[in-house]
């Protein structure tokens, strides 16, 4: 496991040019626009970078070689989830630090609790993305993954826009005021919301990881 985590860290650190450019853009964005955007931007790009390590493992039959190292195939899947959570946390901490630096330098007034709550709410979203992407990355070759991800984004967009239109029509037909319903959500304790989101993410991650472990165990290299 330790060897796999070091390998993935090395893959990320070897993409120096991309990392520097990415952090430069992040700093520029955090001081030039709404700094809350940075808390979604940096961890999102970070997660994409972290998950790209799987396609590096695919190249030149790297999987065959990795499976001769002292690990079981399932360990590879577990290490990928651990690395994603650790890496995403690092990128998230960097983004939060940049956000607060921007607040202080630009003297923007902010509510500490509210800001932290909003930032924490981003974490489950990235974990959900990882839960979907890791098994796909493990099961399919990078070329197929690109097509599948394109299709998934399409389905999500259609579902989102379609759902929004459907809810709007249903609300109009039944005389429901959606705005007041959404406002009612504000009255829910934010800690409860975060805990509920966290529980949902843990369930999704567990299902995803169990499936990825099985994929690796069945796979031939």
């Amino acid at each position, binding site marked *: 496991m*330790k*060897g*796999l*985590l*070091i*390998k993935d860290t*090395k*893959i990320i650190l*070897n*993409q120096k040019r991309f990392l520097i450019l990415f952090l430069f853009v992040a700093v520029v964005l955090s001081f030039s626009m709404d700094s809350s955007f940075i808390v979604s931007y940096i961890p999102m790009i970070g997660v994409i970078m972290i998950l790209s390590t799987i396609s*590096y*493992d695919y*190249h*030149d*039959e*790297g*999987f*065959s*070689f990795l*499976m*001769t*190292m*002292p*690990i*079981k195939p399932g*360990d590879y899947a577990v290490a990928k989830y651990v690395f994603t959570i650790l890496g995403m946390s690092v990128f998230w901490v960097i983004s939060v630090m940049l956000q607060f630096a921007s607040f202080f330098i630009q003297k923007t007034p902010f509510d500490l609790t509210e800001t932290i709550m909003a930032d924490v709410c981003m974490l489950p979203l990235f974990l959900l993305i990882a839960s979907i992407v890791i098994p796909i990355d493990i099961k399919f070759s990078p070329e197929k993954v690109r097509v599948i991800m394109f299709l998934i984004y399409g389905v999500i967009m259609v579902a989102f826009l379609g759902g929004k239109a459907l809810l709007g029509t249903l609300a109009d037909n039944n005389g429901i005021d959606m705005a007041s319903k959404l406002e009612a959500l504000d009255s829910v304790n934010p800690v409860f919301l975060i805990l509920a989101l966290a529980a949902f993410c843990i369930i999704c991650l567990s299902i995803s990881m169990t499936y990825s472990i099985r994929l690796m165990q069945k796979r*031939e*290299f």
Partner: protein
Amino acid sequence: MIRLNNLQKEYKGFKLNVTMEIPEGRVTGIIGRNGAGKTTTIKAILGLIEPTSGEIEVFGKKPREFTGEDKKQIGVALSSSGFCMIFTIKDVIDVLKGFYEDFDEEDFSKKCREQELPFDKQLKDFSTGMRAKLRVLVAMSHKAKLLILDEPTAGLDVIARNDVLNLIRSYLEEDPSRSVIISSHISSDLEGLCDDIYMINDGKIILHEDNDTLLGKYGIVKVSPEDYEKLDKKYIVGTKKESFSVTCLVSEKQFYLENYPKAVVENAHIDDIIVLILGGEK
């Protein structure tokens, strides 16, 4: 140490069916043409593929059930895969330290320097020979008791090939109880290194002999077509007929030396054996 009993693996257009017994403390060579089944056999031994049928045991266990600890006993160099190409040797050292407690950094670095491998260059900028040497050094880096090397000399010039073979010899000299399985399609690599040779063709073992027997007892007998008719054929393994002569591979060259003074009897090399077994008539 390794036992393959009627091990079968089927792919579209290819079927592997091998039986092998590889004892401890020996250097075993697997020789055959490209696509003969050498890599598939090695992958089965390493548990990288699931056999279609048959039995396979390595250190008394099924390779697909290997734990990390079991794998630490084996050092592997695969022909077409290795560390990520954006890594440098420094990265490789850090990763190996993470995988193996027994990784000897000082010894590994020393050997890399001896082989003139650059520490700061990315592996993608290495020459074919450099990559091959690194693969073998990585396999040896944690003092495994079994080395499995799949085509470690493929695509190398004669000097790089010698360097790789010398690395293997040094590894065996350090501890004679170590075992090596090496596959190659270059017979001369195996002739001077192996104790045992398995010849594989079209997914089947067509010959298994002790190397000394192979080189000491096997021979090439050249006779005229007329003399060939009078030849006792009980030790003939393969025959190649040409316009004015017949070349035979025999498993007892002494018999023909003693009984057929007119025949030309020469020592057989693995290449001759391959040509006559695969290309000749039986």
